[in-house]
């Protein structure tokens, strides 16, 4: 994978994670457990695609090789995608869908908070615009974790099972990440070194309230979404998402 400067890498990570998370939500249209959730799923998805577009437009400007945000989304292969492994995992049942959403939100919202103080004004601006949306996202997803964890016997079992199954992909959120050291020192993302600790604290609090058992801290599994080393799932997500751009090269839509 070609590496760009640290700031651009961060932008790609933010944009790609938001994009893939939203793409998974799009798969759920017409399949939500209640009509109100159809509205909520699209609402969250719209926020995330909008955010992805903002991050990737800036990334494209910095990369400056003629590609647009659309080119980055629709014409990069999986090895160039920098999203977290967590978000590319399949939706599963509603417990799995919400487990993924919550674990992501608990990382995403504090990250955006830090970026609001970025020395890069463009980043600070996008983060400030996104923070209200992501605050709603985590309110909603933590509410669902509690409802399902502390709801019925069945919902508790399903929620615990989903958590146990998806948990090993949280090593990217729970552990220190090298790039964050320089981004912190350079004030691009002041305080980002503390992100993993904050994520752990938020997750621990909500899981406890939800009467769920938190698994052991996840260990590195030798993949790294942020370095472009993905699970087998991402290729299929992209094959679907990029179909038209691939099948009709250079067409205008």
């Amino acid at each position, binding site marked *: 994978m070609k590496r760009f400067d640290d700031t651009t890498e961060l932008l790609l990570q933010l944009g790609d994670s938001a994009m893939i998370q939203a*793409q998974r939500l*799009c*798969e759920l*249209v*017409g*399949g*939500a*457990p*209640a*009509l*109100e*959730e*159809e*509205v909520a799923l*699209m*609402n969250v*998805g*719209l926020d995330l*695609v*909008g955010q*992805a*577009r903002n991050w990737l437009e800036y990334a494209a400007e910095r990369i400056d090789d003629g590609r647009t*945000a*659309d080119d980055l*989304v*629709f014409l990069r292969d999986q090895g160039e995608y920098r999203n977290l492994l967590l978000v590319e995992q399949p939706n599963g*049942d*509603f417990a799995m869908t919400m487990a993924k959403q919550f674990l992501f939100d608990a990382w995403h919202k504090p990250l955006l908070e830090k970026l609001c103080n970025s020395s890069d004004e463009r980043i600070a601006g996008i983060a400030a615009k996104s923070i209200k949306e992501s605050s709603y996202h985590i309110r909603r997803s933590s509410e669902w974790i*509690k*409802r*399902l964890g*502390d*709801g*019925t016997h*069945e*919902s508790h079992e*399903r929620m615990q099972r989903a958590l146990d199954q998806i948990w090993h992909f949280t090593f990217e959120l729970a552990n220190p990440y090298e790039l964050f050291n320089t981004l912190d020192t350079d004030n691009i993302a002041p305080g980002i070194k503390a992100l993993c600790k904050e994520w752990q604290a938020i997750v621990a609090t909500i899981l406890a309230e939800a009467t769920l058992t938190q698994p052991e801290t996840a260990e590195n599994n030798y993949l790294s979404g942020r370095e472009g080393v993905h699970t087998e799932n991402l290729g299929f997500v992209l094959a*679907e*998402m990029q*179909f*038209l*751009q691939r099948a*009709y090269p250079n*067409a*205008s*839509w």
Partner: protein
Amino acid sequence: MYAQMVETGVKSVKTSTEMSSEEQAFQTRIDADIKIEPKNWMPEAYRKTLIRQISQHAHSEIVGMLPEGNWVTRAPTLKRKLQLMAKIQDEAGHGLYLYSAMETLGADRDDEVQKMHEGKAKYSSIFNYPTLNWADMGTIGWLVDGAAIVNQVPLQRTSYGPYSRAMIRVCKEESFHQRQGYEILLHLMREGNDAQKEMVQDSINRFWWPVLMMFGPSDANSPNSAQSMAWKIKRHSNDELRQRFIDQTIPQLQILGCTAPDPDLKFNEETGHWEYGEIDWAEFFEVLKGNGPCNKERVAKRKKAIDEGAWVREAAVAYANKKQQRNAA
């Protein structure tokens, strides 16, 4: 509107001498264009007909998300993806307010949804056709939402207050969908390559006749219309609305540079209207009966979502109860 054949359960419209005094007062109110509100007295047949009509409309909004959901994961650009997601979100919202309007009549959302899943309640036949290429996302906005608007604009003045108010809100968003859909097609025709232009024509060819069927059977075969018109829950005949739609659509079709798959289509200078060929009513009635291209899949998908979501809804209720008990303690 997406209600094509709503039973009124009434064989012939009563004359005022045949009406009870309550019925007379009710009809006088309607004739004076005063809205009927949930607490007002209303004939049982009026209430039941409205429940059928509004629930058919609501089911259509919800089933209507499926053909678009089929392409939302494959939208070709960020802009188109955002537009389509927003449209789908709007349609879910329309379903929600229509079910609420329906519940003011004493019906229950879950019961009515159940009837649809059991094949006892209908939704618009149009959503039983597959979406096979990207241009279908344009065609649905332009023609399907367009036909819905022609049906719904008069319903903004319908006699039942909550339905009329829901329609005012829904119509605004449907017009936006229509313009957006047309813009998708216009862009493909103006900026697109040959393959993209073919997609547009192919899409129009597939959707043209099913869209004309959205207005319901011809007036000669529309036995329930007279009562619905007297109650002002329907304000124009099916053929009248179909003609209005065709007259407004053909100029737009010409601007696209596309054609309709109807060799009999021609402008009548004398009447100022477009004349069109015979609609395949056998197909219409078959699709309505459940024998269309996607009926089984559409209903199965909705049923699966609601059935498999039961444990989620139960958990939400159980959690809310626990929380209430804790707060009370």
